[in-house]
C-alpha cells in the first residue's frame, strides 16, 4: 500500500520563499533553489511551489527560477502561479516539473484544466481550491491568492474540476494556513468524499498527529506542509527540515 504523501508547499514572492499566515503577513524563508536543494537532501516525497503574486499581478511563471529549482529536485515537483494557457503549462513541464497547479485561471476559463489534461494527461493537472469560511458552516473558493471571492462552494467546485480533467486537488484552508492549529478536517472530509481523485490537504499542519488525522479521518491522499517544514517550532526561527521517514511511517503507515 502507498503511504500518504507528505509534500512541502513553498510560497514564492518576488523571487524569494516566504511563509504566510492566512495568506498574509509574509515572513522571509530563503532562496528557492537553495531551499529545494535541502528538501532534495531530505528525500521529501514531492514538492509544491506556488508563486503567490503571479496571478495577482496578472503575469506568467518565472521560468528562470523554475529551471534552477528543477536542477535541484529529484522528486516530483508541482508548480502553480500564473498558469493561464496550455503553452505556459508545457513550458513548465519541459523544464522538468511533473505537475501544474491551476487555481485562479480555472475559475475564469474552466476549459484550461481539460486543455492541459488532454495534452499531457490528467495526472499532471492539480486544481487548487483556496477555501475560506464565509458564514456558519459555509465555505467559498477564492481566487487571486485569496483576494476574490468566487462565491463557489468547494464541494461542488471539487466535483466540477474532476469532471473538467483535474487529476488531483490541492485543498487549502485559508483560515488555517500558517496557524499550526491543525487541518480543517470537516472541509477535507467533505471534499475527499465528493471526488474520486486524490485530495492534498493543506493549511494548518502543526504536528504529525495532524497529518494522521487528515489522512485517516479526513480521507486525504496527501498532506502539504508549510510552517512545519520551514520553522524550527511555533514562534521560532527559520529551519528547513522534514520529519524522518520512520516517524512518518509510524504516523501514516497502514
Amino acid at each position: 500500500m502507498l503511504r500518504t504523501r507528505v509534500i512541502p508547499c513553498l510560497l514564492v514572492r518576488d523571487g524569494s520563499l516566504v511563509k504566510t499566515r492566512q495568506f498574509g503577513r509574509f515572513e522571509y524563508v530563503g532562496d528557492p533553489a537553495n531551499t529545494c536543494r535541502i528538501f532534495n537532501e531530505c528525500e521529501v516525497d514531492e514538492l509544491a511551489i506556488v508563486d503567490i503574486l503571479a496571478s495577482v499581478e496578472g503575469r506568467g511563471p518565472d521560468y528562470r527560477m523554475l529551471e534552477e529549482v528543477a536542477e535541484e529536485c529529484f522528486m516530483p515537483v508541482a508548480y502553480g502561479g500564473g498558469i493561464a494557457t496550455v503553452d505556459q503549462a508545457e513550458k513548465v513541464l519541459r523544464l522538468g516539473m511533473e505537475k501544474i497547479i491551476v487555481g485562479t485561471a480555472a475559475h475564469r476559463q474552466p476549459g484550461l484544466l481539460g486543455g492541459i489534461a488532454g495534452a499531457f494527461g490528467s495526472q499532471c493537472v492539480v486544481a487548487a481550491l483556496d477555501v475560506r469560511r464565509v458564514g456558519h458552516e459555509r465555505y467559498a473558493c477564492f481566487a487571486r491568492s485569496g483576494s476574490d471571492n468566487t462565491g463557489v462552494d468547494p464541494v461542488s467546485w471539487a466535483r466540477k474540476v474532476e469532471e473538467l480533467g483535474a487529476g488531483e486537488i490541492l485543498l487549502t484552508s485559508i483560515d488555517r494556513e500558517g496557524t499550526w492549529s491543525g487541518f480543517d478536517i470537516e472541509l477535507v472530509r467533505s471534499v475527499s468524499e465528493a471526488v474520486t481523485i486524490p485530495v492534498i490537504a493543506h493549511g494548518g499542519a502543526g504536528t504529525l498527529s495532524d497529518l494522521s488525522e487528515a489522512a485517516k479521518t479526513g480521507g486525504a491522499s496527501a498532506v502539504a506542509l508549510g510552517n512545519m517544514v520551514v520553522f524550527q517550532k511555533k514562534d521560532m526561527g527559520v529551519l528547513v527540515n522534514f520529519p524522518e521517514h520512520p516517524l512518518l511511517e509510524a504516523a501514516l503507515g497502514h
Partner: protein
Amino acid sequence: MTENKPIIGIVDYGVGNLGSVRNMYRRIGIHAEIVDTPAAMRGCAKLILPGVGSFDRAMERLETSGLREPLDEMALHRKAPVLGICLGMQMLTRGSEEGERPGLGYIAAEARRFPRNLGLKVPHMGWNLVRASTPSPLTAGFEDETRFYFVHSYFVTVDRPEVSMIKCTYGIEFDAGIASGNVYGAQFHPEKSHRFGREFFAAFGAL
C-alpha cells in the same frame, strides 16, 4: 570533450519529461543527450524511451516522428541497451488495454487497467516499495526498503516470469520492471526517485 564518446540518448518524440531525465544523468556525471533525429539516435550507445499520457497517442507520435525505425534497429539488430520509462515501458510490450495500437513488441508482456473493484485510487500515484524478481545488473543495488515514485493507471503483466525484473504491489502484484536481453523497462520514474533512481540510472549507464 572526447569525440565519439558513447552516450545515452533520451528519445524526444514529443512525449515525456525529458529535462528531468537529463538532469539526473548530469548529476550522476554520465553524458546523456536529448535526441530527436534517426542519425542522432544511431550515434548513441544506449537509448532511453520516456513517455507520459495515453498509449495510442504516444505510439502514434513515435511512428510519425520517424524515430520508430531507428529504435527498432538499435533494440533488435544492434542490441543496444534500451530503457523504457513509465508509459515508455508499456510501449515495449505488445500492447495495452488503454489503446488500439500495437506496442513495440520487444518484451512478451502487456498492459492492463487496474481493476476498479479493489477500492483503490487510480492512478497509482506515490512512493511504493519494490523487490527484484529476477537478478539483473539494474537491481543489484536494491535494498530492503528500495522505493520509487509511480504514476500510472495501467500496469504491466509479463507472459513468462523470466522477463519480470521488479515486482510491486498496489492492490495486486504487478511487474514494475521488465527485461528481455538488452531491453529494459521501468514503470516508475527513476528521474524523480532520489538516490534510488540515481542508482538505477547509474546501473543502466554502467551496462
